[in-house]
């Protein structure tokens, strides 16, 4: 049996009410008032498609051995690198093996997530791969006062495919290709160019998804009535329901499009909706999953008894619930670089990143790996050639020690207004890990006035810097204080 062996989702902490956008921008383009309801997920300023994919991947891999991965597929239309394997960054952040693994980027189309899933399932089915992780993520920039700004949200999802402990058995797939350009983003452009909504709704989503589902049913001999949940994205909520009605799917069997609580997360969206469906699924349930974009992918699954044994760390539902309102529209536009605010001369310093040092220290920087002294047992970060324990100082007696999933507590901290930051004050401090070791870290997703010494933290992989002059993005791990609950 092959299929889904784990799943996870990530929706960033901030939610912006669509009314906030309307209050700020409806004067410019009142049409946006047509979709005034609900809220959209907004990534923090230090997140991007890669960092959110890592968050979803960790959510998915909680309790799973990341060393057994032999494939990491990353799907996104907003990858930070045009030429550097983005999936390789995700894999390094997971401390996945470097030997005997195939990693790949799936891009340039919103159905790249489902296409990556089909490729992963086919690789497992062929016997060449045992455990392939698919992480899909998008952080799409949209111009102010546009329907795109209203509809899109940021988020990520991850699915692990394999042969053992399958929680949703793969029941075949069907794809159709259509160079239907509802929107496109030219190479090097920041924003999507969108065609008329009515055409996109009626001739795009409204026809292509039903056509692909029909193809799947014909290929597999299954009936649509067999499926307990049908999952497909469509940010026009009316059209989303209209397609179901046309196909004869009862509203109770249609997976919610998350428009009200999150917005459309692009490449991640079908997988994020699928995660939400799996979180509710019972053994024996059949799920149909479709991805849309220049055609349509359709995949069928049947949930097994093993679903009772699996829970993601937070999952799509947990991630959606862990939210903070972002009432400040200007902050959002700064986070997305839609406005220019001055960082001051202090913020001008922009040395390049040493790629030799990054390669040498890749486990440390991307995987947040320190070491544990085999003589005295002290976990330590950063790892230097001699043990940090002054009573030990053993030389080279180390094994790798991963801090990324270790709990810790704040020892000391500050909120720094002098440090150039997109979201001042820059909050940072010293963290002590419960099982030993400490590290000096930036904090993120927090409010200074809620932080206290001794507060628990968890670690999160974040974009550390973006070198606008050279196009390089640097990553490291930050501590997220657990202010409440």
């Amino acid at each position, binding site marked *: 049996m092959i299929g889904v062996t784990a799943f996870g989702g990530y929706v960033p902490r901030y939610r912006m009410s669509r009314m906030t956008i309307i209050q700020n921008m409806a004067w410019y383009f009142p049409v946006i008032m047509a979709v005034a309801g609900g809220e959209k997920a907004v990534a923090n300023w230090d997140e991007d498609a890669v960092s959110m994919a890592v968050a979803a991947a960790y959510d998915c891999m909680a309790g799973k051995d990341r060393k057994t991965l032999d494939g990491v597929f990353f799907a996104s239309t907003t990858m930070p690198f045009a030429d550097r394997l983005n999936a390789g960054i995700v894999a390094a952040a997971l401390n996945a093996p470097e030997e005997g693994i195939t990693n790949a980027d799936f891009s340039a189309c919103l159905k790249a997530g489902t296409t990556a899933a089909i490729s992963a399932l086919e690789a497992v089915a062929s016997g060449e791969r045992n455990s392939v992780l698919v992480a899909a993520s998008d952080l799409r920039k949209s111009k102010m006062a546009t329907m795109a700004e209203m509809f899109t949200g940021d988020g990520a999802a991850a699915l692990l495919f394999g042969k053992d402990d399958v929680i949703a058995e793969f029941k075949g797939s069907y794809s159709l290709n259509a160079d239907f350009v509802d929107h496109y983003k030219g190479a090097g452009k920041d924003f999507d160019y969108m065609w008329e909504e009515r055409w996109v709704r009626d001739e795009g989503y409204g026809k292509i998804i039903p056509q692909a589902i029909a193809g799947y049913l014909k290929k597999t001999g299954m009936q649509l009535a067999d499926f307990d949940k049908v999952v497909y994205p469509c940010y026009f909520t009316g059209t989303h329901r209209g397609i179901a009605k046309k196909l004869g799917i009862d509203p109770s069997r249609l997976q919610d499009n998350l428009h009200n609580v999150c917005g459309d997360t692009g490449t991640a969206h079908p997988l994020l909706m699928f995660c939400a469906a799996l979180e509710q699924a019972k053994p024996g349930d059949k799920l149909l999953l479709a991805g849309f974009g220049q055609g349509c992918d359709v995949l069928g699954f049947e949930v097994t008894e093993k679903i009772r044994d699996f829970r993601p760390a937070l999952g799509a539902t947990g991630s959606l619930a862990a939210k903070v309102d972002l009432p400040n529209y200007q902050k959002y536009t700064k986070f997305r670089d839609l406005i220019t605010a001055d960082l001051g001369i202090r913020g001008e*310093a922009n040395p390049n990143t040493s790629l030799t040092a990054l390669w040498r220290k890749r486990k440390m920087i991307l995987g947040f790996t320190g070491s544990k002294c085999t003589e005295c047992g002290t976990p330590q970060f950063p790892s230097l050639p001699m043990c940090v*324990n002054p009573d030990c100082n053993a030389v080279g007696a180390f094994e790798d020690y991963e801090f990324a999933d270790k709990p810790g507590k704040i020892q000391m901290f500050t909120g720094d207004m002098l440090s150039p930051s997109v979201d001042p*004050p*820059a909050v940072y401090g010293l963290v002590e890990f419960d099982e030993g070791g400490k590290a000096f870290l930036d904090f993120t997703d927090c409010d200074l006035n809620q932080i206290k010494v001794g507060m628990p933290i968890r670690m999160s992989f974040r974009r550390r810097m973006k070198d606008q002059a050279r196009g390089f993005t640097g990553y490291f791990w930050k501590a997220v204080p657990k202010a409440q609950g």
Partner: protein
Amino acid sequence: MASGIKDKVAIIGMGCTRFGERWNDGPEELMVEAFQECIQDAGIDKKEIQAAWLGTCFDEVMVGKSALSASMALRLPNISVTRVENFCASGTEAFRGAVYAVASGACDIALAIGVEKLKDIGYGGLPEFSTAIGTTNALWFPNLTAPGGFAMLASGYAAKYGLDIMDVKRAMAHVSVKSHANGARNTKAHLRKPVTDEQVMNSPMIAFPLGLFDCCGVSDGSACAIVTTPEIAKSLGKNDIISVKALQLALSNGTEIGYKWDGAHFITTTKASKAAYEEAGIKNPREEISMMEVHDCFSITELVTMEDLHISGRGKAPTDIMDGFYDLNGKVPCQPDGGLKCFGHPIGASGLRMLYEMYNQLLGRAGDRQIKDPKIGLTHNLGGFPMMNVCSIAIIGRHGA
């Protein structure tokens, strides 16, 4: 067994510029200004200086690398000049180079000069130092600033002693009030206005809980010293000889940032001061130290340092500070010249500027800041950050005291 530096080297001359926003002076002008005062005080000819040390920190935005800037500015007679840099200990490091050269017998008369021209960068605060932390650290270090790094200490200190951070902030405020009161009496200080506790408490937040008035100024300045042996000093006709009693440095080894540390004290200062007292033959610093110039880059640094110098008991610095123990008329006056708080912190110059005040106090030249009959003065620098730092301590006093 090493016998230490006590009474082996005498200071025969010192000089110090007015510290401030010296818009019209570069590092060369500042060095010459301090040097002119110093050599006149020493009463020797420039040609008698056999070796020199220059302390600077931000060479990238100032004098450049090497010690050529000092050699050329002072037109030194083709002698050895060495530039030293060890964060905020740079000035004291220059002094240590000169003192050790004389003590070793390698030369008779040596010069230590420190300078920093900070006000050529176009923005407030110290120069941005993201490129100065090393290639690997640049990949992961938080984008910290000096106030942010030290502000963390206040949260650690309050947590350790179970204090409300605002109560700690009130004691920190008195640190600044006291230094401003002293600086107001000093014509060479940059900031010369007294401030009130309310002003300090209500100043704009820089890095929680440090407000603007918890932070030292940013200034240009230079200070220098000429040292020789006590015998040569006597032969030069010096009657009141001020000699070096102790010179100690201690550097972090990673314990604070990566192992066991309470986040409420400086491991380095605790060790360096103990070693310095041993070297100087001081048994009870609270009784024997006459006065101090310590590294008050931020009010919290001075507060915690009072304990690390073994003068206030652990957890007792706020009480001593509020009791006026460190005021100019207190038992152990701290920052009689106004400290970094009023002088600012031209890094390479600061250690020598502190020694300049101790030297003048010991010689009874401190004017209306004069402390009654001081015998022993201590200076202290703390460079880097609480969790990773360089500490230097110098003790000077009357020869034979």
